[in-house]
């Protein structure tokens, strides 16, 4: 009798252990705002005003301010229409009493002079780029960098050609109105942001010259991959130097080859493998909350429109080149995420639209807030390249017994760099995995991979890893772009 009961109990425990899966909602709570009746708010950007209200820009042209946004629904959210019918604002920022919006034709700053809650002064900060009238010529703008610049990035005509001035370029706009071309080679951006070190990054969509969508570093003076906008070099004065040499038009190029052929070419910092991390990455935002939003202070977050998700990116610099790893962060948003903000108080705001491109989130429009519950998830915290593999750190100590090679799998691959549309994963390699060391505190391990392939995405999964408390990783796969191998 007793034996049976023990068996019964132990199988129940086995059931418990298997069912002991952490959910994202254990750690991050999503609150969906109710949109004012009769309005449509396809959230494309967020900013915090000087009175604490959260401003949200809509693809439709409105800018709303929301009072009590941080405390909704405990306190009712009060929506106020601050500006109306701008021409597709895709990025807003607040500075020194002015709300700045990057809209299709210009970076504008606006202010409410007469105190009725609506902006009545609209100043053109910069309009130094062309628009042909094609719907696809999107222009995104970041929030301010430490030097008072908004980084703007301009989609190609139709996402393929450059038929208006500076389509396919990034332009740095200072709050004093000076606009300086910063980089060429852009294809189809979805958003742009500045990390805590003051460097600008944007997301570029899979398509021509982009084997997969990726997060690209806007290094001033660089060529970022798509050559179609380069005929505008003659308008840049000498600020970008000489027009770069042409890439390989044969149809079977590689990023590593382009790096050797084109001196100013900067490869994508972090590839976001197509169909795995997402299909349409959008906003780029650093975590400036110093821990109030959880353990990822200083890391970057990238919104994803098709999947209706937010992903996380860890960045590092090796041999002067930005690279790093992408991870899933949160799924299941109501629409296709376009806008993203993390406030210093630790609130994440996101929202978007599924109009025109479809998304797994089925709502036409959305504004949502994400709060950290305070509970620490078990996640890969940082992933750094080493001369023979990677060093991973964790948010909670691991169970060292689970850190064995069979707990991991790794596949490395690259993509074509060519005028064709996108690319399948190529040159697949499955390196041998060795766990070189586990730190005594269980918070980091060294993985040795043989071989390590420069230029490849190294997709490292750790489904067998367990925390000291027996939990699997909340997100067990890292996608590391190995542009440089450190010494």
């Amino acid at each position, binding site marked *: 009798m007793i034996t049976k009961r023990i068996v019964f109990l132990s199988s129940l425990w086995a059931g418990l252990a298997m069912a002991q899966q952490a959910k994202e909602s254990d750690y991050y709570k999503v609150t969906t705002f109710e949109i004012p009746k009769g309005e*449509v708010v396809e959230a494309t950007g967020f900013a915090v005003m000087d009175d604490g209200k959260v401003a949200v820009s809509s693809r439709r042209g409105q800018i709303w301010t929301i009072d009590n946004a941080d405390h909704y629904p405990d306190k009712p959210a009060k929506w106020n229409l601050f500006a109306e019918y701008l021409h597709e604002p895709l990025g807003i920022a607040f500075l020194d009493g002015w709300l700045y919006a990057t809209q299709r034709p210009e970076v504008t700053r606006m202010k409410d002079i007469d105190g009725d809650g609506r902006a009545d002064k609209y*100043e053109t900060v910069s309009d130094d780029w062309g628009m042909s009238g094609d719907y696809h010529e999107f222009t995104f703008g970041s929030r301010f960098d430490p030097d008072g610049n908004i980084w703007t990035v301009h989609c190609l005509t139709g996402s393929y050609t450059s038929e208006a001035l500076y389509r396919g370029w990034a332009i740095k706009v200072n709050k004093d109105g000076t606009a300086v071309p910063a980089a060429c080679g852009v294809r189809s951006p979805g958003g742009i942001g500045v990390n805590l070190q003051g460097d600008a990054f944007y997301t570029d969509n899979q398509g021509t010259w982009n084997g997969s969508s990726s997060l690209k570093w806007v290094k001033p003076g660089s060529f970022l991959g798509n050559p179609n906008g380069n005929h505008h070099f003659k308008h840049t004065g000498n600020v970008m130097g000489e027009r770069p040499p042409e890439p390989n038009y044969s149809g079977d190029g590689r990023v590593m080859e382009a790096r050797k052929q084109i001196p100013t070419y900067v490869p994508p910092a972090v590839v976001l493998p197509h169909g795995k991390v997402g299909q349409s990455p959008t906003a780029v935002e650093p975590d400036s909350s110093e821990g109030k939003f959880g353990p990822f202070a200083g890391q970057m977050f990238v919104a994803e429109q098709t999947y209706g998700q937010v992903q996380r990116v860890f960045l590092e610099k090796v041999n002067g080149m930005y690279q790093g790893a992408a991870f899933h962060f949160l799924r299941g948003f109501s629409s296709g995420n376009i806008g993203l903000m993390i406030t210093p108080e630790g609130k994440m705001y996101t929202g978007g639209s599924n109009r025109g491109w479809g998304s797994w989130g089925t709502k036409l429009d959305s504004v949502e807030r994400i709060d950290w519950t305070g509970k620490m998830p078990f996640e890969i915290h940082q992933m750094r390249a080493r001369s023979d593999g990677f060093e991973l750190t964790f948010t909670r100590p691991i169970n060292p017994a689970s850190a064995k090679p069979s707990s991991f799998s790794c596949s490395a691959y690259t993509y074509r760099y060519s005028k064709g549309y996108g690319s399948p994963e190529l040159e697949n390699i499955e390196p041998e995995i060795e766990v070189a060391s586990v730190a005594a505190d269980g918070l980091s391990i060294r993985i040795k991979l043989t071989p390590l392939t420069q230029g490849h995405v190294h997709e490292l999964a750790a489904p067998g890893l367990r925390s000291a408390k027996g939990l699997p990783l909340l997100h067990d796969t890292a996608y590391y772009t190995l542009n440089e191998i450190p010494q």
Partner: protein
Amino acid sequence: MKIHVSTRIKCVTLISLTATWLEAEPPAWSAKPDREITISMVPAKMAYDTTLLRVQPGAKVKLNLKNPDDLEHNLVLIKNDPEDPQGERFAARCIELGAQGPKLAWTPDSPRVLAKSGMVGPKKEREMFFEAPSEPGDYPYLCTFPGHSKLMRGILKVGNNDPIFSNLSYKVYAGEFRKIPDFRKLTPIKTGNAEWIDVRTLIGGEDGRAILWEGTFEVRTGGEWQFYLGSDDGAELVIDGKGVARNGGNYFFQVRKAKVRLEPGVHKMRLAYFEGGGPEALSLVADLEGAEDMIFTPDITAKTGARRSWAGPKIVKLRNPDEALVFRTFLRGRSSRSIAVAYPGRVNINWSADSMNLDQLWRGDFVNAASNWNTRGGGSHIAGQDTVSPTGGMALQVLDSIADPWIDYSVGSSRYEKDKGPEESTALISYGIPHPDYEFKGYDLDANRFPTFCYTFKGVEVADHYSPTTIGGIEALKRTMVIRGDLPPNTYLLAGVKGDFSGLPDGSYKINELMALKVEGATPVVRSSEAQMVKPPARKTELVKEKRKELLVPVKGDQTIMITYRWMTAGQLDK
């Protein structure tokens, strides 16, 4: 000790880890199908270009799927289910595939699936083969990528497919239409006969058209038929001389339903339609329980409901009747930095931030923004009437001699072709570049939210303000230009072009049959000249030479110029 364990241990089915869609082999009859049909995904519209396929029972069908869009799509043919006639529940099941979706081409393993295409990538094509069911009926087909099926679907009708009309004629008219016109006053630009009512083949993509169809059709089963009339813009259905349904047309695609008692036999139909601007659609279907549907148009979305009205009407209206509304948008045919402003009193302008000048003024309804927030965003159209463009182009220029031509806009050019190096590119493209003499500064809104546009010309500040008024009860627009600072010598303001500029008793100059303008604060001169102008639309910006009459106003700066534009006759404005 009770242990509450929620043992929802999910069975993770081992799906193949390779991400390729396993294609079925084409059938033996693939070279000789009974029907071969091409279906295209419409770029940016999230729709198939064909929403109705009619095939015989058991027909061997080859579909050529073309995807010119920049998203992937698929086509899945499913059995009909009376409880889910449009396949919405099925589409929801496809979304639930979640992370497995991409590997399964968003198609679950379900007995309801009759045929599936797999994902068709952007710019790709694919052939799909299937045998039509032997049982007559309606079989839905849809794109099961999450979120697409609401608009991207159609019906495969298995049965006989005789044309419904025994004879049908059409007459097409051109003009500015905002309601069904009185056709007796118009002359058609095109006439002919057709098998059924197909607006896409007649006027696909054209704006400003009205069409009148007249024909006879046979009713096989008598009864109270439910008619579904869907249209964008408006339509009016008359059967046997009696009005059945009408759509005003000021909203997105709208459906009107009406019941009509019809005895078996031949009946007369008259269908009038107009298209003001933006997307066009016309769908007419009738059904009766126990009888086969009567389908009058290839578009059956009036009945299937596969068209969603985006929130809000197309015609943008003032939120507050006393305040102006500023709307920055693309306006079809104009340069890209358009700022449209609606004023109280139904006077509207389009001010261009490219040329820093008034581009157009019109009265009546403001702007039709349907293309703007329908799918990917394609810009707006003027919705009112009696539009006048006094000059187009830049307002100010230095002419060292009165004989010098007016040269407008600033254009750059490059040898450039898609994905070709500069050596291989032979084509020359031109595009607008910032004008060295001008800088747009923005605008301020006054207490009534009327904008004052600010810019500099050669470093001198200009403030350009407009307000609506009436003269003799007829709409007019008052323009006040304040020039703050000294202009270079020989600076001129271009006040009007191409008009006869005959002087009128009140001191105004006639621009054309619609409008006259009056200048105060300076004395205009009339001249003839060959200007170099930008020809809209500014998609590929080129300068074009144009010989014309011009009304020039010499200006020296530190002055205020007022121009009043007035329509000379009362308009036919809808209330």
